């Protein structure tokens, strides 16, 4: 164990460095990913070390970025695309939904498109419009895409590498308000075998009274909520889903069968969000184990508000605990 403490951004950077060094077919593409190193510095120094042929600043056009990445992938490359902010993925949405997601099925498996689309997502950083959104449900509903989101530097490091090696297109949501939080990362190649596959959920805090499921930026919030609840004598289990398509229902249902209660939390709006899918599926399969309905905590059915209102808009510890209280009151 040779773990070092690093930020989530540094972990992503290290992961990109590792794949660029080990696989000459990998490419990093996007707006400002070169000299600037990306607006969040995730690609910092990569162009300097791997050259302009591997780390490419693109014209300002998301459809063009995704579309040419598909072309590179058809030629045998493994492009890792950066979308600058969540709200700017939509000009590229058509290429993602109608081409990237479908080419493998369309060709009956003859064509593989190992493209990773990295998207810094979520709010809480005081940004202007379009810079704080959580659109993951809009990708999870689309067959052919994998959707994942790490919650910690260690998962960021390992899951990004797994995404790059995956033969399917992966939309990789990065919790931008956790970018500069630190955690232990064991970068030793031998550590790879000890990692949980990206599609597997992880029980990050065991507990018996209620299951809290979350992913990305909300995992830390839920852990904090569980800590507070523990002071009040409530023993919450926290599950980090890690993958949003597929969802590891086995792990969630295993937990819910023990606790009898589930609260799902995400930053995205509740209406048609991931919580709905989880509630529906878990209720179907754990109907007789549930002492309370599955409750959902998330944003409202409104556009992401101006930053002075984001504290009210984003689900924080209090709103998570409020749902926990309501579930336990049943």
């Amino acid at each position, binding site marked *: 164990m040779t773990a070092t403490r690093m930020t989530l951004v540094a972990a992503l950077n290290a992961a990109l460095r590792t794949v660029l060094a080990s696989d000459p077919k990998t490419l990093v593409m996007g707006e400002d990913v070169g000299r600037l190193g990306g607006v969040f510095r995730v690609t910092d120094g990569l162009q300097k070390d791997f050259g302009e042929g591997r780390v490419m600043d693109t014209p300002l056009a998301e459809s*063009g970025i995704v579309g*040419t990445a598909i072309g590179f992938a058809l030629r045998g490359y493994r492009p890792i695309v950066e979308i600058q902010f969540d709200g700017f993925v939509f000009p590229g949405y058509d290429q993602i939904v109608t081409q990237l997601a479908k080419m493998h099925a369309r060709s009956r498996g003859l064509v593989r498109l190992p493209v990773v689309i990295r998207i810094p997502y979520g709010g809480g950083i005081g940004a202007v419009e379009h810079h704080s959104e959580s659109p993951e449900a809009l990708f999870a509903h689309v067959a052919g895409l994998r959707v994942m989101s790490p919650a910690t530097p260690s998962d960021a490091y390992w899951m990004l590498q797994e995404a790059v090696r995956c033969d399917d297109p992966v939309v990789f949501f990065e919790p931008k308000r956790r970018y500069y939080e630190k955690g232990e990362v064991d970068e030793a190649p031998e550590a790879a075998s000890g990692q949980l596959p990206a599609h597997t959920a992880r029980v990050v805090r065991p507990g018996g009274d209620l299951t809290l499921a979350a992913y990305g930026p909300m995992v830390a919030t839920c852990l904090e909520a569980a800590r507070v609840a523990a002071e009040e004598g409530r023993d919450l289990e926290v599950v980090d889903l890690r993958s949003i398509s597929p969802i590891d229902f086995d792990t969630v249902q295993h937990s819910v069968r023990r606790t009898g209660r589930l609260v799902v939390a995400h930053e995205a709006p509740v209406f048609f969000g991931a919580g709905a899918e989880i509630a529906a599926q878990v209720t179907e399969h754990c109907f007789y184990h549930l002492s309370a309905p599955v409750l959902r905590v998330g944003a409202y059915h409104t556009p992401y508000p101006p930053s002075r209102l984001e504290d009210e808009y984003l689900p924080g510890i209090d709103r998570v605990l409020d749902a926990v209280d309501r579930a336990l009151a049943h």
Partner: protein
Amino acid sequence: MNVPGIRRSISQDGIRLLTPDGERTPHPEYACDPSPDELRSLYRDMALARRFDAEGVTLQRQGELGLWPSLLGQEAAQVGSVRALRDGDRVFPSYREHAVALGRGVDPLALLRLFRGVDHGAWDPDAHDFHLYTLVIGSQTLHATGYACGMAKDGADSAVIVYFGDGATSQGDVAEAFNFAAVWDAPVVFFCQNNQWAISEPNERQTRVPLHQRAQGYGFPGVRVDGNDVLAVQAVTRAALEHVRSGRGPFLIEAFTYRMGAHTTSDDPTRYRDAAEVESWRAKDPLLRLARLLRAEGAADDAFFAEVEAAGEALAARVREGVRTMPSPGPEELFDHVYAQQHSGVARERAEFAAYQSSFEGV
């Protein structure tokens, strides 16, 4: 504003090596002087494509296919361009490039599988250097651009050609492809088959100026070629491919041609265009034109044309038979290729589906 005002100011013709009467007309910049053998072979490819296409229409009318987009009238644009390619060059088609497909050795039945609804057109792109048909207008131009950049990165001495229609030029994706290709000097030939109609909309609804002019704004050459002149198309495409191969960036060809048939078998063009217009283009028929040359130059005789016709009939019989005996996919195939690696959601639904299906067994 002039929202609906039709403006028929767009100039016609383009580079030409063969008049509609089948007479050679030299061009200062472009030349193409195929041997009689090659000329016959060009004719043969066009004629087979036309016969195959007609069979597609017939099979649709007979209910064997769900849809067929006819290439009638565009044989020269397609055969001339595909014959300009070298081995290792890569084609990105739209959905009407049946003659290009045949030229790349794609099994005609593979095309029919798509339009019969057996698959989505799942031939092997690598086996033929011929990508899948793309139905979302214009999106393949970006794939072609990325692919071409990848080729250049690999140091390959190859090029890409991407086909799209006049209507497609209005899509943002095509503009982005022009720009990416220009900025990145991608070895890609943009081949626009301007058949003058996008379903019911004539060119004037799509553009204010001739389409080849679009390239200027992005800083690369664009030319119009007579798309019904197979020799001119071949010559211009060959030159364009050389241009892009040499590292000088992309090239746009506007092949000025005409969609003689309906948009697809679902369409009824009598609702929106005059018979007279169609008639005027009949005189410019690409096959007739080459046939006249072949006859005039003594390169082909009745026996040749009879042989080609017989080959066409044989091809038609083969595909007819092939379609009628084409197996339908099994329902479990629904789940087979959604992902390359296991996806637990698909696995669960596959199991549920199997259980549901088996609930009918013995019923």
